[in-house]
């Protein structure tokens, strides 16, 4: 267990290090005209050089890189080029929004996916199974942003015209300020992000549970006289969940991508929104910061997911 953990953490650190290096290289090796755009249109070459020196952009790349790494280890992600705000502060205000979206959506997607999958697998080829299958396939083929805009069109625009103003057009309210509005403003983003993925998980759960239910120990459990519910959920689902957990680990990267799109559809200024904005401004410190934090989250979550195996499936020994 410990050896496994150490190996996973080391691999995680390697991934993070490579990510930092790659993104850094990407943004600093490539000629940037940020000093020029900061200096304004009529700047003299001297002003531009001065700004470059102030941002440390006149140093050789390896010096900049070394400095960045040292700062990073001290929890300093540098400063926004334009407003001189620490990047950690920007991320600090964006992160809760993104986490709200991602967590809520994952809960819906897993619940919906696994429950529908169980429904399908318990009665394969029934009407319920076929209906769920068609729905899964439909949502699975639907791009996130199309689903988001469609939901907005019907649930915000059409409902508001009909006189029901329940769903806001977008935006975000702090949970601490007003939990109900927080919830109300996040339903559509959650669904947008969750439905596409839930479809995939329905398929996965169905296949995995069907396999497991065909195994000998399930027959044993049934012949011991256990109730069908207990057989399916306790004996069957528990080990059928292993591939689901694996897939969830893989999909965390997808989740991050989906959040970027969802935030941009619903105008929520979370991490993805900040990243897209920073990209348009060539605001490298912010982009690198966001990418590092996102990559860090994916790495940590992946390790957690791997540990979950042992909890879920008693047959798995981590070593």
């Amino acid at each position, binding site marked *: 267990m410990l050896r496994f953990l150490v190996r996973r953490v080391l*691999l995680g650190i*390697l*991934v993070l290090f*490579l*990510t930092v290096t*790659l*993104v850094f290289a*990407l*943004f600093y090796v*490539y000629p940037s005209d940020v000093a020029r755009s900061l200096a304004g249109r009529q700047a003299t070459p001297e002003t531009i050089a001065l700004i470059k020196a102030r941002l440390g952009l006149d140093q050789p790349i390896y010096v900049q890189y070394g400095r960045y790494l040292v700062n990073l280890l001290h929890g300093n992600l540098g400063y926004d080029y334009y407003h001189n705000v620490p990047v950690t502060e920007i991320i600090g205000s964006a992160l809760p929004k993104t986490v709200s979206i991602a967590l809520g959506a994952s809960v819906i997607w897993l619940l919906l996916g696994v429950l529908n999958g169980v429904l399908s697998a318990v009665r394969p*080829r029934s009407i319920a199974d*076929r209906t769920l*299958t*068609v729905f*899964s*396939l*439909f949502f*699975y*083929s*639907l*791009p*996130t*942003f*199309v689903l988001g*805009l*469609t939901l907005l*069109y019907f649930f915000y*625009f059409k409902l508001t015209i009909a006189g029901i103003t329940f769903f806001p*057009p977008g935006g975000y309210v702090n949970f601490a300020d007003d939990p109900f509005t927080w919830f109300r403003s996040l339903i559509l983003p959650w669904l947008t992000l969750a439905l596409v993925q839930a479809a995939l998980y329905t*398929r996965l759960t*169905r*296949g995995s549970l*069907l396999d497991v239910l065909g195994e000998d120990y399930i027959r044993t459990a049934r012949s011991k006289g256990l109730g069908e519910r207990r057989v399916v959920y306790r004996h069957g689902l528990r080990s059928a969940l292993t591939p689901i957990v694996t897939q969830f680990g*893989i999909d965390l*990267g*997808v989740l*991050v*991508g989906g959040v*970027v*799109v969802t935030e*941009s*559809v619903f105008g929520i200024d979370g991490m*993805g929104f900040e*990243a*897209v904005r920073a*990209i*348009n401004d*060539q605001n490298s410190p912010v*982009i690198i910061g*966001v*990418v590092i934090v*996102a*990559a860090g989250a*994916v*790495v940590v979550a*992946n390790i957690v997911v791997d540990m979950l195996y042992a909890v879920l499936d008693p047959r798995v020994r981590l070593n």
Partner: protein
Amino acid sequence: MSEETLRTTEADEGRLAVTADRDLGGPDGTGGGAVDTADGPARIQGRSPWQLAWERLRRDRVAMISLAFIVLIVLFALLAPLMAALTGHGVNQQFNDVGLTPEGLPKAPNGTFWFGTDDLGRDIFVRCAYGARISILVGVVATGFTIAVGVVVGLIAGYYGKVADTILSRVIDVVLSFPFLLFAISLVSIVGASLSVTIFVIAMFSWASVARIVRGQVLSIREREYIEAARSLGASSTRIMFVDVLPNVLAPIIVYATLLIPSVIVTEATLSFLGLGVPAPTATWGNMISEAQAGGLYQLAPWFLAFPSLLLLVLTLAFNLLGDSVRDAFDPRGDRMLQK
């Protein structure tokens, strides 16, 4: 031949094809089917697993309907200039007078503009046709690159093993755990958005899963006797990899490729939607959807959002269904999305 025997033999054939158990392109140049007399009935002698898979696919109604939709959209894309000539509307031509209402809003679908117009008074029908070209082009080309890189890396990792395998497998792990979209948008923002950059970015981050699949298959194939035979005949490693091993991993690769195309198409549309794909004013479905979203315009002009979205949905759905059927054709025992 009774339906029942046909099905069982096919099931066996399919399994063999997917687990890559036999040499399709043997050095003697014959197909795999001819060698099959020992375990299969003489009736199906001479039919390779490929022919069997194709016949199964041809009998699959869902697959054929999906294929028909794909062909229709491809035709729509190929004939885009014809559509422009037919309607007399250029792809980027703005009809400020007839294409917009007096208030300057897009016009709903009508006799002149079949799919309506967009915010600049351009013909959505013609733009959808040109957008289809980008989607299909990126879908096919990026998938091609992805498969090519993935196959080569997977072959090398699986065939050489040892150090090569360890290094390449770690690289695959790292690439797979990257938050793809974030990295893609950083890259695009640096080098600037364009068609070739979009294709490159997609291929760059999708090859790893192909490589992983191929590597797994090659690991089991390289221990087989005919590989040893080829080696003892003095065949070079390159020849063994591409002539003896590769044909046997083609089935899973084809299945994966069919399912990769729709996901690539969606990725391209997503990048375009975020303003990081093929730059405007080029007509792509993602660009059109993004333009429809700007200022909530789609709420007043739902057709602006609906037509590119529907085309995107139909194309991805058709490819997903087809991919599912292709997998079924190669491996009839597997779980599939739609039961017959």
